[in-house]
């Protein structure tokens, strides 16, 4: 990786933060746009979450005896009830370790 790509990424990130503060006085975004922008995390994060869970190293679908699917479901359940970010991550990680080191051995 080149430092140049990191600097460009830093620049674009800065611009997403700076542009609106610099350009707007207020309420340039209407309610509809604000509502849609509030969906951005829900629209992007699953695209990062899903492929490494459901696809194997060759990129083909792996639904059978896939410990990541079980661990992710367990993490979702813990997240749903606890509403705690750290508890969710560790629930997923510990159940994953349990499955790969103990159950599937």
């Amino acid at each position, binding site marked *: 990786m080149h430092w140049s790509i990191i600097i460009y990424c*830093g620049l674009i990130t800065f611009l997403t933060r700076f542009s609106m503060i610099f350009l707007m006085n207020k309420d340039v975004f209407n309610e509809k746009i604000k509502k849609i922008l509030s969906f951005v995390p829900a629209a992007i994060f699953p695209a990062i979450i899903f492929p490494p869970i459901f696809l194997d190293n060759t990129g083909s679908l792996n639904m059978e005896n896939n410990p990541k699917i079980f661990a992710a479901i367990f993490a979702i359940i813990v997240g749903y009830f606890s509403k705690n970010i750290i508890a969710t991550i560790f629930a997923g990680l510990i159940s994953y370790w349990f499955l790969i080191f103990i159950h599937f051995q």
Partner: protein
Amino acid sequence: MTTRLNILTRGIIDVSPLMIPVVPFGIIYGVIGMDLGIGPYMTLGLSVIIFGGASQIVLLQLFSGGASSLVILSSVGAVNSRHLLYGAVLSEYLSSLKLTWKIILSYVMVDQAFAVSNIYFKKNKSSENKHYHLLGAGFTCWTIWQISTILGIVLGSIVPEELGLSFTISLTFLALLISDFRKFKNIIVMLTSGLVATIGFNAIPFKAYIIVAALSALIVAALITVTDLKKK
């Protein structure tokens, strides 16, 4: 002078509880950076130059998958596009500041700092020095993020590969969505994004699956929003 210091301290105190999940997130990021072999300087460099946890992990993931610079750049931009909203919301309170202030505050306007300073600004609209709150909150986030990145870099050179820590990428982002699990509309948007990304992972060229999935899901979100507004 004391009021400035008071407001700055207020910002630090307000944002502190939100730093608890940031520490392990930063450590995970540092470990992944080392795991993918970009080395300690670049791993820390990303934290300083980009200073956006989610986008840094996306960058690493796409880079290790062999994505092109253009795809990496647009994906990072897409992940961080939520800041447009933050800026638009806060601009109302920051419009009278000098350019230097706007630049400094933009650099540290991350999710957690936005969340607490937005609340503070709403309550203290008339305060002349209210921007010190965002400065305090933002630089607290910055400091904690850099320290936990370094911790991750140190740990990353020790942690064995068998632990499958790359799975924590999925888990971390999943955890960031827990507040969306109870909203049916958000679940539809999430499933759209996840399914398009999984199906498109091989089918969509140039590793552009994140962008394509995100745009598809945002179109669904827009449709939901429009039909919702019509009902009212």
